[in-house]
């Protein structure tokens, strides 16, 4: 497949990509990448729950 032409908007976003995370992910198996996503989902759910609880208290 031919490489896509560079897009200046995407290039601007690319400057903020944390490549250390990507390099770590590339060392992992596909299953480990999904396990990491599931852990991230759990953390996000917990933060949302805590946020809702905090809003109710104030």
């Amino acid at each position, binding site marked *: 497949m031919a490489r896509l032409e560079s897009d200046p908007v995407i290039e601007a976003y690319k400057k903020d990509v944390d490549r250390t995370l990507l390099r770590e992910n*590339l060392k992992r198996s596909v299953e480990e990448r999904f396990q990491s996503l599931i852990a991230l989902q759990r953390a996000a759910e917990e933060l949302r729950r805590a946020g809702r609880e905090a809003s109710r208290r104030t």
Partner: protein
Amino acid sequence: MTDFAGLLRALSQAGVEFIVVGGAAATAHGSALLTFDLDVVYRRSPQNIQRVAAALAPHAPYLRGAPAGLPFRWDVATIERGLNFTLTTDLGAIDFLGEITGGGSYEDLLPHAVVLKVFDLECRCLGLEKLIEVKRAAGRPKDFEAIAQLEALLEERDNQESR
């Protein structure tokens, strides 16, 4: 929360022909972004539509975001009348897509798919280059960060391979 293993297993065990696309495909390729659903492009053949209907039927599929209590039935007739379905199930959220912008149908995407071995299953996933192309074609500002990350992944992967 989405039970990715459960959803992929349900589809695979029913023999559904599908390709993982979207955020879950990005995860498979190494993206670190958070996604909450499984997006798949399914083959629109009569046999496969039957398999799609059977695969999800035991998992309480319902239209995501729709008010409760609508007379929604997940069966062959419903799938034949529609094309793209955004669903909740007891295994989590799943989008069944008959076509995607910039990518087309299952048959169009198949040459660009790779085989994933995950959760003791083998399933097809859209290749990284095509995933970037499809996300670019969608042209949604919310995808800019994801595209940047996917392009950075492609560069990192190429760098590793050239070492």
